[in-house]
């Protein structure tokens, strides 16, 4: 299962709620303001750091670059839009809007 999160973890609990219901091995994809969760050394970094023990975590490259995030938690994978399409093809999706 693929979970997409597009909200900032500083504004909104979508990521926390997603991680509560995601099962081990599910894939988490951060996009739009969701990519702020992938930044290292923030007050919310521990969410993704913990998630990485149970999930593969992706962040959309265009969104990361647009926001100038150049210090990401290093196990987070960067995904292109083409990768996004592949992930959506491979998994059922739930969007945590």
């Amino acid at each position, binding site marked *: *299962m693929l979970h997409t999160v597009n909200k900032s973890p500083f504004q909104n*609990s*979508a990521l926390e*709620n997603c991680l*509560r*219901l*995601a*099962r081990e091995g*599910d894939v988490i994809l951060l996009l739009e303001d969701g990519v702020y969760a992938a930044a290292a050394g923030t007050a919310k970094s521990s969410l993704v750091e913990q998630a990485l023990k149970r999930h593969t975590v992706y962040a959309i490259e265009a969104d990361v670059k647009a926001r100038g995030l150049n210090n990401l938690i290093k196990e987070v994978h960067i995904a292109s839009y083409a990768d996004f399409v592949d992930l959506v093809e491979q998994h*059922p*999706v*739930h*969007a*945590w*809007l």
Partner: protein
Amino acid sequence: MAATGKKVMVTVRKAPHGSIYVQESIEVMFIFATYDMDLSVVFIDDGVLALQPGQDTKGLGIKGFMASLGALVDWEVTKVYVDRRSLKERNIAEDAVIAIGKDEDTDAPIRPQVLDSAEIAAMMAAQHSIVSF
């Protein structure tokens, strides 16, 4: 659209009256109900606030959707679930959530079934598609 028999879930995670999401989700439930699908509905996070008893939207000048939710069972939308933790966090009693229909024989109210996180997670994993609000 041909009958599909596919497992489709609607998830509702928004509070009811500050935006149109919950209203739209109910429209979608009724649309799905007209097709041959294995439909389930889950209220999670702020979505459980739509099930709070005693909502009165007259002062907002809108009809509200309490009546629509109360007709779900009539439309054979019976797999309706609500997240236990979300209810608890918002201090809504599990047996107080609004009814989605009445038992044909006894007239007893039928309420959404309260589930734990793991049960909802397993159900989500079994879907062909999930439409989220």
